[in-house]
């Protein structure tokens, strides 16, 4: 039965469902037990599934990921919560040299069904390290898959699909959108995890986004419509592998494309997407693929984050530039 859920609550219910469905699913992280995580995504789960399945770990991210690897080898399906994007780096060695490589190292004998949940991105007025967008680091790492959800429906189903998936997945949650609401029908047939989706049609410019920027892209499309411009908005949903066939289809029609993300532009996802679109739609392009992202600076103090983060205006500015080519 359909209900109105926030992204946060949808994740909570999705985790609960995954734990009910498979006794091997375990949650691990800092403060995920009694506290329910700093964003309450695991609220109530330790109470219902016990301390063996919802494990408050010592304060050590490498420890969380490294023990998750061992648990996966023993047949468990660990879901690791990284408290904030900026704190995933102590676990980087385990993620890049172990989680990502063990399936290949063992020629498939050691599957690594690990989900790494990361609330990511800025916009919540936080202090340093709480607003990072580290997706490109993972997308550049062979052996990892990376998804980013933008809405409650994808949150609810996506987390379950990610947990059921046999490969390691970095699961990015748009933290500043945790409180966004939508109707979720748990009996609906979910879209596959690794598919992008056209969420608004239009023939003038294609706008690509994922995670928190999807809402921004849609706002830009609304505003553009008022000026008589039809933006086609695509929610990428999967960051690695990229699912660009719908994008190519769209860009061949519009001839123009703008990619939006919060991460710094240099070597952000926009770079890869722009390169691929250009390779695949060279003769259809009326303008180069333009990128709107964070600047190549550390994420600034929160009083400046609105200047740093792409917003509706910056997306529209890029749309204008694209149309002006």
């Amino acid at each position, binding site marked *: 039965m359909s209900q109105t859920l926030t992204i946060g609550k949808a994740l909570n219910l999705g985790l609960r469902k995954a734990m009910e469905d498979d006794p091997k699913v375990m949650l691990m992280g800092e*403060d995920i037990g009694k506290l329910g995580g700093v964003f309450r995504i695991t609220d109530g789960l330790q109470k219902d599934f016990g301390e*063996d399945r919802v494990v408050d770990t010592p304060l050590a991210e490498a*420890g969380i990921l490294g023990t998750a690897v061992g648990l996966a080898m023993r047949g468990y399906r660990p879901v690791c919560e990284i408290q904030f994007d900026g704190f995933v780096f102590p676990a980087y060695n385990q993620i890049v040299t172990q989680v990502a490589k063990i399936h290949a190292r063992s020629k498939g004998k050691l599957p690594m069904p690990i989900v790494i949940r990361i609330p990511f991105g800025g916009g919540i007025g936080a202090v340093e390290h709480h607003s990072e967008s580290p997706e490109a680091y993972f997308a550049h790492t062979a052996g990892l898959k990376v998804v980013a959800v933008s809405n409650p429906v994808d949150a609810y189903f996506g987390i379950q699909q990610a947990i059921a998936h046999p490969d390691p997945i970095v699961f990015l949650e748009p933290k500043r959108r945790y409180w966004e609401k939508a109707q979720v029908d748990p009996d609906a047939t979910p879209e596959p995890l690794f598919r992008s989706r056209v969420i608004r049609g239009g023939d003038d410019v294609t706008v690509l986004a994922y995670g928190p920027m999807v809402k921004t892209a849609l706002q830009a499309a609304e505003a553009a419509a008022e000026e008589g411009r039809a933006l086609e908005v695509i929610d990428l949903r999967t960051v690695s592998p990229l699912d660009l066939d719908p994008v190519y289809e769209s860009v061949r029609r519009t001839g123009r494309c703008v990619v939006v993300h919060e991460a710094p532009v240099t070597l952000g996802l926009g770079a890869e997407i722009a390169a691929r679109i250009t390779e695949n739609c060279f003769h259809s392009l009326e303008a180069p693929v333009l990128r709107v992202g964070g600047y190549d600076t550390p994420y600034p103090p929160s*009083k400046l984050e609105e200047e740093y983060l792409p917003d509706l205006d910056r997306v529209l500015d890029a749309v204008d530039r694209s149309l002006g080519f």
Partner: protein
Amino acid sequence: MTALRQAAEVVDPVPGAGAPHLPQQPDLIQLLTPEGERVEHPDYSLDISDDELRGLYRDLALVRRWDVEATALQRQGELGIWASLLGQEAAQVGAGRALRADDMAFPTYREHGVAWTRGVDPLQVMGLFRGVDNGGWDPAALGFNLYTIVIGAQCLHATGYAMGVQRDGAESAVLAFLGDGATSQGEVNEAMIFAASFAAPVVFFCQNNQYAISVPIERQARVPLFKRAAGFGFPGVRVDGNDVLAVLAVTRAALQAAREGQGPTFIEAFTYRMGAHTTSDDPTRYRLASELEEWKLRDPIARLKAHLSRSGIADAAFFDSVDAEGDELAARIRQGTVEMPDPEPTEMFDHVFAEQTPELAAQRAEFVEYHASFEGEK
């Protein structure tokens, strides 16, 4: 589940953490009982004047007043978040006052009491939590590094800095602050390994406030934290973190040993976080009110106040004057905070590098141009 079940039976690493009985801890160094009675310790004596004692009280009281004001300002939307030090004043002031001017301290994000002793303007700390900058003070000038938010990272910086002190042939010491939760980070343990290996003049000052956000110390360690040090080959001591005199004496001794080339010491200041982890936290979800009530009986400020009153070192007039000073400080902090100007947006481009890159200069120029394009509109 044999192993899993038995795991629960391991010794309590914090004797009396749930229902604390500090005086029963044989290893705990104390110079002032919770009742404010001065006691002696065979290994640590403290030669301290009445003036200095009153000075410590003033530090404690003003720091708490600041903290209370900051919490209020956060509630009113003037700060993004605030990490309260309530209950940890003695640990911080005692440690901070043990430092000499030429020593260097490496704080976490909660060391407002240490910042105070190093002469940091409270408004600079407020600026960080307001989101104006990352703490605008000059670390070198004050002997107090910027706050470090990534848990434990500063312990390695402190150790490296201490290796520099060694190479300079300077007789200074370095004080690295960390929490109980931080002891689980690999980097913190590496810091202790490097410090031991190079006999670096660094003291690790761990405020065991018994929680890492919601996670109790039992999850980080099954034996008292100060024992960790022996495993790395240097001394560890546990001091009553709510006893400013004991903290001062123990930290002084450790810093002096470091200066003299005796290498690192690990100090576990046994204390309690009386407030929430930060203003975003809700401790009722994970701990009992009764625990807090017990700890109120060991309030670090009440304790010193009792001693000063009882011994006649300070009278009501003194306490009143400190209160008044506190109110002034609070007013200054409040006004300074609400009036704090927002930073210039272009600042984010200007400090990334010492030598700006053409790339970033171009981004800055585009940024300026882009914003100028709105000038007319708004």
